[in-house]
């Protein structure tokens, strides 16, 4: 973990209630699956965000306006300075897959984009199934397509496959040896039940984001684990839903 003050360089809408923010500064090094905690001026707790993309001097996140804090974020003018806690949590284990399958629900696509990019840089194109509620909420497709073969699914069928990602996966009969998933808990639970050979990135309401408050602890077959510290990435086999 490292603390740094970052500057908002871009902050624009990319889909319904969905924004992409680019922050510049001393961001340190991030591995795919890791997250950052950003201060929201006027609010007490920091907000956790999965890393969409990062290099030495910038960091990008994609976020949805779900409450007052994220609504305020969407109004930050360029140049706003935010205190950030960086490189939090563990990351996806890329060594497990030769033929990776990435499955996202909603903005779970953001951290999986960073993973797909890293696989691509290592010479591997991923198979990607990206699910959204409906056509209005579809985001990041073009970015994902740079690094893999993307199948789009929407719950209401307004774009791509009609149905959730788990059903979509069934119909595709994809050839993969290991999967990586990020999305709503119901999706992760359904996936983990069907396929053991994968890693899932869990989401939880956090207090601190670095292991101090025990606010986000889940039960696993290996005991209690903090989503923010031992996670957010867990083996699909270990999480007790």
């Amino acid at each position, binding site marked *: 973990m490292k603390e740094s003050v970052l500057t908002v360089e871009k902050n624009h809408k990319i889909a319904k209630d969905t924004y992409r923010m680019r922050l510049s500064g001393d961001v340190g090094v991030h591995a795919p699956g890791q997250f950052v905690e950003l201060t929201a001026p006027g609010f*007490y707790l920091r907000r956790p965000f999965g890393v969409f993309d990062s290099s030495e001097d910038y960091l990008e996140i994609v976020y949805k306006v779900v409450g007052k*804090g994220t609504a305020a974020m969407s109004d930050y003018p360029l140049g706003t300075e935010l205190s950030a806690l960086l490189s939090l949590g563990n990351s996806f284990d890329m060594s497990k897959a030769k033929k990776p399958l990435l499955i996202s629900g909603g903005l779970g696509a953001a951290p999986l984009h960073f993973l797909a990019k890293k696989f691509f840089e290592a010479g591997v194109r991923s198979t990607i199934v990206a699910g959204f509620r409906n056509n209005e909420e579809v985001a990041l497709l073009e970015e994902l397509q740079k690094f893999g073969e993307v199948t789009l699914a929407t719950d209401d069928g307004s774009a791509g496959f009609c149905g959730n990602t788990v059903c979509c996966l069934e119909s595709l009969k994809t050839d993969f040896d290991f999967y990586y998933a990020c999305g709503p808990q119901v999706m992760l639970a359904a996936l983990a039940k069907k396929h053991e050979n994968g890693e899932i990135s869990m989401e*939880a*309401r956090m207090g*601190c984001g*670095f292991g101090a*408050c025990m606010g986000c602890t889940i039960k696993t077959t290996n005991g209690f684990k903090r989503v923010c510290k031992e996670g957010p990435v867990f083996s699909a086999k270990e999480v007790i839903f």
Partner: protein
Amino acid sequence: MKDLSVELLGEILKNPIIPASGTFGFGYEFADYYDINILGSIALKGTTVEARYGNPLPRIAECPAGMLNSIGLQNPGAPAVLNEELPKLKKVYRGKVIVNIGGHSFDDYAQAASVFNDAENVLAVELNISCPNVKGGGLHFGTDALTAERLVSAVKKSVYKPVIVKLTPNVTSVAEIAKAVESGGADAVSLINTLLGMRINLDTMKPVLAAGAGGYSGPGIFPVAVRMIREVKAAVKIPVIGMGGVASAEDALELIAAGASAVMVGSANLVDPFACKKIIEALPSAMERYKIEKISDLVGAAL
């Protein structure tokens, strides 16, 4: 050169700043962020006889000027704290620590606290009789003066370490409870624990926390803490450890002036892992501003 040292239960602490229980884990993980040897002491995560998972998620909610938590004393159990967590902490922290104890019965408290009787690096045990998040335990021991007194005298029979009793603000007269635990044999009191609170999600019309209510902490409770610490200091002879929404060196000085011999910093650690370090580093210049040479001279100055 400002003198930051304070005396607490026969130990000289290099400064009065102590991370509060439940906001600093078992301490050693913070050694990855800074040299935790600068801390006056460390109050460890609340510990019970047996391991506990705590309450269902979500167990954190945000509020204006603070947060609610309903963790419910997640911990690995007293024997694991003694045999696994304390040795890990000892490798990175040379000072003595405060073990925080929770329970459901007099026996629970006595049994869990006595596990640490022979632990060298334990300065004291802090009895949490004010946790709002454990059903049938904790809080109700702290809201009735007679029960609180009896609990402390029962625990004192089998516990050799000094006993600090952590008090709840969720009472009509905190001074009355403080006097009761003093008569029961408490060596010090610490206050305030969290204020009981609740948030409701208007989309679902249900409480945000899965457990319903939780404990409110953060800068919003600071003035409540100042008032209660001053009241308790005036009522008892044993030392008072102050806490409640401390976020700066000035806040710490204010609690000390109200009567605190040492200051615990809680929620601030959760929004800024470097909070205690920053407060300690800011103390000398804050003391300079108020012409304070020795911090121990300030204790109760506003009484």
